[in-house]
């Protein structure tokens, strides 16, 4: 293996060892703190002694120093050898200068300080937790659980990431410093390319760039990015990649052709104003729903209407109530066709929609179905919905994602951080209120009015804190995760829940969800005859075919073992299975599509008119061909 690969593998292995050692020390720390809480004086099984709680901080500090920081110190001592190995590895690629030992010492010192900060932060949290448990008279068991939660989960999670990232950053810093001092001007992005590799890193791995090119690329945004300093943090949190200097042209040619990502990221359209976006969407909807006079004579009857010239209705139109009759529904759909009801949708969401409608117009032609007729806000929590060509969009869900598509993650993460800070401040005020409330209670004659006011203030601020936390969670959740890399044949547990998770950016996820909904439109409209719907809805001919393929035994809920289910959600039922496959087929991921459905879609696309007989199924009658 190449010298750099050997070095990086050894480093990955060392990072694993460090994480394991630190995890063990945190288990010891967790047990020690639990033992400490066990020494707290109890009254009726509850903590009560505030003086003990205050003094416990000293013992907690000592425990953190002895169990956590001692282990960290031992881990960072390993960095000496890492620096020696890095220099040896770089020596394989050119003449290098040696790094000053003082620089190595300073880097180690700074790394240790980072762990000290983490320890101090958690000392505060744990001390506060113990004090609060005592103040509120928590039971011993609850107090221990609360402390274990902080050490065993929160602190362990942060420390584990920090121990990994610190080692990688140290190695990167040493590498870069030696390289620059040795006159390097070009660097190769090196490291693994496997299922854990984020899309950004996969795109650049094994490529050679100049320093200026690196700085320019790293100004961009991607999921998991932690800073724009490419040489220090590479792809971001938990990244296993780094730059290695290139001194030899042969080194460039040898590996520059290695494979990179295969999916082209969707281009974000130029943002329109809300007025322009609504006008453009309306124009597209009108164009796709205007019925020419001879529509019934056209071979594929692409308008999906009955003999009265009205659209077939199977679903409730926008603003329908439980009392809306089918006749009224048909009139409502007719009236709503060619319109968008854009309530709550931002200019950014509308721009993405406008762009997506160009794609659905092409899909409508390819799959011989009417295009989307109207766009409305969804009535519930679904992110999107479809019925009779009525596309429902949930602005609450999509607006933040659309914002990310146009502005990158930063704006939304700033918003999340602001809300998080707001919540923290409110939580602190709540703590003060509790103290004041208890002080008042402890008085010989507590003032009822004061207690009532404090209780009211507490309730109000608690609601505000919860709302701020919810807003922060929501904003953070809008940031897409790295794309799922599951392939047919891999472990089924590793599949994403939905097809949009095969894409790592908001604009592609939006487009994928539109395609999923359009997949529903296809099974609802292709060869539709107007008799579907009603109390005993039997489905269109294509839906009956799909149902036949999907189930091995519907009565027991057993799905066909020979089908490919590219996402967990595709296992829900035959319609969702189709919609997920449809989205992937038309989204550049045919490799994930069930072969039977892929064949069906190929047939639909290549055939001049609508399906007649395929796979021995009569797609006009909805039964096996005789």
């Amino acid at each position, binding site marked *: 293996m190449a010298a750099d690969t050997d070095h990086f593998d050894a480093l990955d292995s060392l990072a694993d060892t460090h994480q394991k050692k630190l995890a063990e020390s945190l288990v010891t720390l967790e047990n020690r703190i639990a033992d400490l809480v066990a020494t707290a004086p109890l009254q009726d099984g509850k903590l009560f002694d505030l003086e003990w709680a205050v003094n416990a901080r000293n013992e907690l500090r000592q425990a953190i120093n002895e169990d956590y920081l001692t282990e960290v110190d031992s881990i960072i001592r390993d960095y000496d050898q890492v620096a020696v190995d890095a220099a040896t590895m770089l020596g394989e690629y050119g003449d290098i200068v040696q790094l000053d030992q003082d620089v190595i010492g300073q880097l180690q010192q700074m790394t240790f300080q980072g762990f000290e900060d983490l320890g101090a932060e958690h000392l505060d949290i744990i001390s506060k937790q113990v004090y609060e448990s005592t103040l509120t008279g928590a039971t011993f068991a609850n107090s221990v659980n609360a402390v274990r939660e902080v050490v065993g989960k929160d602190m362990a999670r942060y420390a584990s990431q920090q121990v990994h990232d610190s080692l990688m950053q140290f190695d990167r810093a040493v590498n870069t410093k030696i390289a620059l001092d040795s006159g390097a001007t070009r660097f190769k992005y090196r490291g693994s390319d496997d299922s854990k590799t984020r899309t950004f890193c996969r795109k650049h791995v094994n490529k050679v760039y100049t320093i200026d090119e690196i700085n320019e690329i790293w100004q961009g945004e991607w999921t998991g990015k932690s800073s724009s300093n490419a040489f220090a943090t590479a792809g971001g949190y938990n990244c296993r990649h780094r730059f290695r200097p290139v001194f030899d042209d042969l080194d460039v040619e040898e590996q520059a052709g290695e494979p990179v990502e295969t999916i082209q990221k969707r281009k974000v359209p130029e943002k329109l104003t809300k007025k322009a976006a609504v006008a453009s969407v309306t124009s597209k909807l009108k164009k796709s729903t205007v019925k020419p006079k001879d529509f019934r004579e056209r071979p594929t009857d692409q308008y999906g209407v009955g003999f009265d010239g009205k659209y077939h209705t199977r679903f409730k139109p926008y603003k329908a109530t439980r009392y809306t009759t089918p006749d009224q529904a048909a009139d409502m759909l007719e009236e709503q066709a060619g319109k968008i009801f854009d309530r709550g949708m931002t200019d950014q969401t509308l721009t993405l929609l406008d762009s997506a409608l160009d794609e659905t117009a092409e899909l409508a032609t390819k799959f011989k179905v009417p295009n989307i007729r109207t766009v409305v806000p*969804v009535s519930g929590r679904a*992110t*999107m919905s479809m019925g009779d060509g009525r596309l429902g969009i949930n602005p609450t869900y999509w607006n933040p994602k659309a914002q990310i598509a146009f502005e990158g993650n930063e704006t939304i993460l700033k918003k999340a951080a602001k809300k998080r800070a707001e919540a923290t401040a409110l939580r602190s005020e709540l703590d003060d209120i509790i103290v004041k409330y208890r002080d008042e209670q402890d008085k010989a004659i507590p003032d009822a009015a004061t207690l009532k006011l404090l209780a009211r203030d507490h309730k109000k601020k608690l609601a505000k804190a919860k709302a701020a936390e919810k807003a922060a969670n929501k904003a953070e959740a809008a940031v897409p995760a790295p794309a799922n890399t599951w392939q047919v044949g891999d472990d089924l547990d590793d599949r994403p829940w939905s097809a949009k998770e095969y894409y790592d950016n908001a604009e592609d996820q939006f487009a994928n969800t539109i395609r999923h909904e359009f997949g529903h439109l296809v099974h609802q409209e292709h060869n539709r005859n107007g008799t579907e719907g*009603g109390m005993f809805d039997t489905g269109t001919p294509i839906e009956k075919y799909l149902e036949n393929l999907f189930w091995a035994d519907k009565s027991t809920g057993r799905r066909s073992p020979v089908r490919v289910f590219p996402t967990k959600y595709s296992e829900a039922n035959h319609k969702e299975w189709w919609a997920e496959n449809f989205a992937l087929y038309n989204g550049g991921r045919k490799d994930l599509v069930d072969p039977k459905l892929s064949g069906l879609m190929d047939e639909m696309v290549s055939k001049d008119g609508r399906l007649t007989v395929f796979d021995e199924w009569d797609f006009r009658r909805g039964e096996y061909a005789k």
Partner: protein
Amino acid sequence: MSLSKAFKRASEIVQEEPLAQDIIKQLDTLYDAVPEDEKDDFLWFYEQVELTTNLLVEV
């Protein structure tokens, strides 16, 4: 990754035929109970049931 009980329960009730009359209400309750990292996936249950609950039936 193991799913929460609330998420698993939701995946069961959306498979029932016929769907419960108050399916949306049941989903709302379960949605509030699932952890934050499952909420995005959970929203698909609403999409799934809407294909049935949104059917136009004669009253």
